[in-house]
């Protein structure tokens, strides 16, 4: 190709790309949902005199800034393909080991947790201690605590990624809440017990963990379940962030006769809830099917429970998928998430007298506990 031809081809090919994508952007319908990122794309920003005239310190809210930073990237034609190109270039050309802290090992995605945040541990311990001293100590109740490591515990260091010392982390946490009895589930878990594309553990592999928890609190867990599979593909939170493409997964969940007879009440919405919410299962994050997603307070009453014991469980999102497996063992389970509401409100009317109390948190939340109230 001569230099003159080259210049012509450069101009023509660039024009095709630039004008082509411009036209496609204008003509193609905008997507309603970004599947792999599990969020809605930014909508066309409000075009008003006020939004156009914002500048200086207010520029971040201006029409122009929203258009540049949110609307155009979110709605660019073939956005998903471009995201895959970026991931591919990062992993295979630049040989970057992670993408914004997320890495993939043998098809399993995880996120680096390289630093122990001492202040976060202290805050989480302070919040747990508050509950203990306000509601449990005078009644002589000894709570239980169990800590769920994230996948990095098994994957990071072993594969050359940055990792905090999880054993030290757990030790520090337990030392800060030494009034609680520790139930060690870490040693019974493994990376395969978690979804490959998500942070959470997979209920399919939690039967032994449920037994550890119930037995650890003095019960005798021996329930039998039927295994069910959700009919929609599940893309976890890492599907849109991982440096390599991740396959879709199947959500498996267990049911039994008792579950059909329990009463779930969602205090946040002030209406009955469900153990497995099939509407949410078909929503943007199928994991939300477990106990109806992020809800600050639920009660589950089981008239056919093996005992008349109650359980008050303080949990994060990991708790949602294991709590259904504890139902047979308790007449009533009160599920609270203090990230969304203060305990003084969540614990109104809760009777601790014949209740086991369990704090079940993941290292992810304990190491970034600012939201715990």
């Amino acid at each position: 190709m001569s230099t003159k031809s080259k210049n012509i081809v450069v101009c023509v090919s660039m024009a095709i790309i630039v004008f082509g994508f411009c036209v496609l952007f204008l003509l193609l319908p905008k997507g309603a949902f970004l599947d792999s990122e599990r969020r809605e794309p930014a909508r066309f920003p409000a075009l008003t005199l006020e939004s156009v005239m914002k500048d200086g310190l207010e520029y971040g809210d201006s029409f122009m800034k929203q258009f540049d930073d949110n609307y155009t990237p979110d709605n660019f034609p073939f956005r998903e393909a471009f995201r895959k190109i970026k991931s591919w270039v990062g992993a295979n050309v630049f040989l970057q080991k992670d993408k914004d802290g997320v890495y993939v090992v043998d098809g399993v995605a995880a996120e680096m947790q390289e630093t122990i945040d001492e202040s976060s541990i202290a805050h989480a311990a302070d919040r747990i201690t508050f509950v203990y001293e306000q509601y449990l100590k005078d009644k002589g109740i000894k709570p239980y605590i169990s800590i769920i490591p994230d996948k990095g515990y098994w994957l990071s260091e072993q594969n050359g990624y940055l990792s905090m010392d999880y054993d030290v982390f757990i030790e520090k946490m337990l030392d800060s809440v030494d009034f609680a009895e520790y139930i060690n589930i870490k040693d019974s878990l493994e990376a395969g017990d978690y979804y490959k594309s998500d942070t959470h553990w997979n209920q399919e592999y939690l039967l032994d963990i449920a037994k550890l928890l119930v037995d650890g609190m003095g019960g005798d867990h021996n329930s039998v379940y039927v295994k069910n599979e959700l009919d929609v593909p599940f893309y976890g939170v890492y599907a849109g962030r991982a440096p390599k493409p991740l396959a879709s997964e199947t959500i498996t969940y267990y049911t039994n006769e008792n579950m059909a007879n329990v009463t779930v009440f969602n205090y946040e919405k002030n209406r009955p809830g469900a153990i497995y919410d099939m509407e949410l299962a078909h929503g943007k994050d199928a994991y939300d099917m477990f106990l109806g997603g992020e809800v600050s307070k639920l009660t589950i009453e089981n008239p056919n429970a093996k005992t008349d014991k109650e359980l008050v469980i303080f949990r994060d999102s990991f708790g949602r998928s294991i709590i259904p497996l504890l139902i047979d063992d308790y007449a009533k389970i009160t599920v609270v998430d203090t990230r969304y509401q203060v305990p003084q409100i969540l614990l109104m009317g809760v009777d601790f007298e014949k209740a086991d109390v369990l704090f079940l948190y993941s290292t992810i939340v304990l190491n970034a506990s600012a939201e715990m109230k």
Partner: protein
Amino acid sequence: MLFSSISFLYFFIPAMLILYFAVPFKLKNTVLLAFSLFFYAWGGVTYALFMVIAILLGYIFGLLIEKFRGKKNAKLFVSLGVATIISFMLYFKYTDFFIDNFNKVTGLSVPLQKIVLPIGISFYTFQIISYVVDVYRGEKAQKNPINLAAYVAMFPQLIAGPIVRYCDVARELETRTHSITEAGEGTRRFILGLAKKVLIANSMYDLSELMYAADEKTVLLYWLYGISTSLYIYFDFSGYSDMAIGLGKIFGFHFLENFNYPFISRSATEFWRRWHMSLGSWFRDYLYIPLGGNRVPKWRWFINIFAVWLFTGFWHGAAWNFILWGLFFGVLLVIEKFWLLKYLEKSQVFSRIYILLAVIVSFIVFQIPTLGEAFTYIGGLFGAGGISFASAETLYYLRSYAVLLIAALVGSTPLIKKLAIRFSQSEKSAKVSNVLEVIMLVVLLVVVTAFLVDSSSNPFLYFRF
């Protein structure tokens, strides 16, 4: 508006190209101005009004200087014009700096004005000054306000340079040609600049931020910070200049080069002949020489040199670290002029180590706003404080960014350019090279688009300029 944005690449550019090439020549500057004002107003409408006022003032002063050419009043108007235009920049850029330091010295609490700096004000202010002074020095005043405004506000170089002097483009404002060859070369230059910014500079910025945020500081970390910061600033700045020069070519303008592989320099003197050349020559022609240059007594010469470097530093930002950054180079240049340069010119290895170390130290001062912290980082390069050499974290990021670091280091030398020239020397290999070049440009544009669509960081270096 940023060059490295979807809005610019896929909306602004197509609209601009269609209109610019659709209208007859006499309207091209009007289209160029209209789009330039839109481009600038996209970053803040009111700031565009300030720029228009500054341009109008420059236009009026230019006419007045020409009217009184050769008379006393010409000098009055050029002084008044320069003072007026500079007062705009002083107000927006330096008010809070002076108040803050006044408060520190006097113990008073004069409230800060919290003035947000209009993007590119330092660049367009210098361009208007260059116009006013060039007219005073004999250049014809621009009668057509649209042409003058098109020169000052021309979007390719408006927010990040190069500082285009009026005398360099005066003729092209009146008459210029457009060709497919120029457009092809301009497009190539633009895409290479865009790739430098989006793929290399942004990655180096990410690495420098990771090092800055790391809890455990090590010697290796400080070196990685210094090197990635230097590479970030170079690739960002030179990438923007490449894009400006490329866009200029597409629209028929020929801007002077702004960077010439500064990291291969062997002295600070050479470095500043290769780094931000348009700023260096601007200060030489509009400050250093008017002050008397080196044709004055030695003590005055010293003052002239330090005045230039004081203002060079201060031009980059209203903070002490920028002043120190400028003066640091002033000191190096004086030492070189009086003693060191002759030794550096004879040395192949020491001279390069010397200037790279000086550049890394200078950019640490440039990038870290608090001087105490900057000195900690500089001390850290040499293990001050008994820190360990490396940690798992620094080694991890060194490995993770190794390819990008090597690409950036190689790309900051003329090696690839030389190889490309050597490869395309025969007619046959030149043809192959042309095909490969087209493929590379298409791939780069697609990859850059991918990085912009899924952008996690796209820093803008010039918000303090």
